[in-house]
């Protein structure tokens, strides 16, 4: 006999994500889910961003890390609430772990939560965390083919940060081809070209991310 089910397989994750989203909306907290490959510069971007944005917002960070707390230790100097979620080999964060982490923050005393997802471009795009929006971070040293290979992330993200612009002349990264692919996949997607180490585009990034937080 056949039994009809017609159910989203990730229903459990989705339900929890909806709960998280409602809670954050009620508490007026913006949660930003940062998604990139390992080594694109998520933690460095966070360091630079916290240095600037903690002047005007009350910020907390959720660090998704496979086994260590190294990323979190790099952020300790900001003296802000940080929760590390070790996924023990798992390639993405899910809404249940986020919900649990939120339980350790005083949400009434926060404006923004940055979630540093596990470095990976496929899996984190499939798991809704209840975030306000996703950001894709890529770097020139990874090659220009990321949008073409991982279209879902670039369809769902609210913006793309292209990091390591200072190294572009040492790579075969073609900005033209990268922009062309993005144009086909999601023409309305803002692209921020930056270098966290040299400072290129950082002011534009701070302004842009502040506008997103406030809108």
């Amino acid at each position: 006999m056949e039994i009809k089910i017609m159910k989203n397989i990730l229903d459990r994750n989705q339900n929890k994500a909806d709960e998280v989203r409602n809670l954050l909306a009620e508490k007026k907290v913006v949660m930003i889910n940062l998604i990139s490959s390992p080594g694109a510069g998520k933690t460095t971007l966070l360091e630079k961003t916290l240095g600037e944005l903690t002047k005007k917002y009350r910020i907390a960070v959720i660090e998704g890390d496979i086994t260590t707390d190294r990323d979190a230790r790099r952020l300790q100097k900001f003296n802000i609430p940080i929760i590390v979620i070790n996924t023990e080999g798992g390639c993405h964060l899910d809404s249940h772990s986020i919900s649990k982490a939120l339980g350790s923050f005083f949400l009434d005393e926060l404006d923004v939560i940055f979630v540093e997802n596990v470095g990976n471009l496929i899996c984190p795009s499939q798991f809704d965390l209840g975030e306000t929006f996703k950001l894709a971070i890529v770097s020139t040293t990874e090659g220009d083919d990321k949008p073409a290979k991982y279209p879902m992330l670039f369809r769902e993200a609210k913006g793309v940060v292209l990091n390591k612009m200072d190294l572009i002349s040492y790579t075969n990264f073609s900005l033209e081809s990268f922009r062309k692919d993005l144009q086909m996949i999601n023409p309305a997607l803002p692209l921020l070209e930056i270098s966290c180490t040299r400072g290129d585009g950082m002011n534009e990034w701070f302004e842009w991310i502040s506008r997103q937080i406030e809108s």
Partner: protein
Amino acid sequence: MHELRIAEDLTQIVLETAKASGLKKVTEINVVFGKMIQIVPEIFEAAFRECARGTVADYAGLNIEIRNVRMSCMKCGWDFKVQENRFVCQCGSSELEIISGKELFVKSIEGEH
């Protein structure tokens, strides 16, 4: 490797349904995945076998239907299949509504009492 987590959640849904329906054995599982979810069927099948081992779904056939990415244009109404990541309508608009391609659901199971 999101296949593993999806296989775990699928197994849980299948086992709960089988229990509620009094199935002693699950023979077929029918799932639908959209292309955008980027599931590799071989990896998914291997992950599912691991999750279902020793349960009533242990030897169930896993039928995976993959759906293409299709969009409908909000300007001119054209409904088209997205090829080579071209999320742009023939009229030039990129204001699109997704029709299919993000599916991730279990359609049905078959089994014996």
